[in-house]
């Protein structure tokens, strides 16, 4: 295996971890925060109270755990691949978020929103065809 192929394989393995754990984390955060209730007033005491309630939710913590796993994979991949490659390539996760939001949380996703999400993915595919690194190693 050439070093370029190796670079691509390890990049795609970490991208797969990112697009699985990221959306799951977001969906659990969304579910947890909905049970906490909408943030209302913006006085400092209200904000503290709001976040105190948020961090007593087990679902929020589950979401945070999944997002930490996502973040570790993300940080590792950024040590060699371009940010402007990794960020768009991971945006397939928007489809997963919408699917999970619909099937796990019962959110209604309109046709316009699906169209928007698919156009986002088309953008991702375009960007994904460009090389993972354009800068020299430091």
């Amino acid at each position: 295996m050439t070093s370029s192929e190796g670079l691509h394989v390890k990049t795609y393995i970490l991208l797969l971890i990112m697009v699985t754990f990221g959306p799951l984390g977001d969906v659990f955060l969304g579910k947890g925060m909905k049970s906490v209730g909408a943030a209302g007033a913006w006085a400092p005491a209200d904000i503290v109270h709001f976040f105190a309630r948020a961090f007593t939710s087990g679902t929020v913590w589950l979401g945070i755990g999944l997002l930490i796993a996502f973040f570790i994979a993300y940080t590792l991949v950024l040590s060699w691949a371009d940010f402007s490659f990794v960020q768009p390539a991971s945006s397939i996760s928007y489809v997963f978020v919408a699917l999970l939001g619909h099937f796990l949380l019962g959110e209604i996703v309109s046709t316009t929103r699906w169209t928007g999400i698919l156009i986002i993915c088309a953008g991702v595919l375009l960007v994904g065809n460009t090389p993972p690194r354009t800068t020299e190693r430091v």
Partner: protein
Amino acid sequence: MMLRVAVLLLFVVCCSTAGELCITRAMKAAGEVKSFHPRELLRVFGRAVRIGWMWTGLMLMMVSFFAMLAVLSMANVSFVVPATALSYAAGAYGSRVFLGERITHLRWVGVLLVCVGVALVWQGKG
């Protein structure tokens, strides 16, 4: 309510993109991860946490995360998460200016499509 969601989303996008750019700069300075052996990972993370950009990035990501929690309490996750894709435009510009990455024409077209998609997601918030 929608204005508040819009302002918070913009805040999330700005802070998370700035944070990611700082973390990328720190990780590039820390050096490429050559193997996933725990000792190698610890070595790279050990170098990364001694770089100031890493801490600036982490602070920005944390602020963005708290704002994200507030938005998620007000709007659906299938709307909020795609809307944060606005960070693509900010990310492409920032990675060129701040990290010296070359953005090919094809990447710009992709970024533009992503922005059109976000606009539609916003329209279809129903």
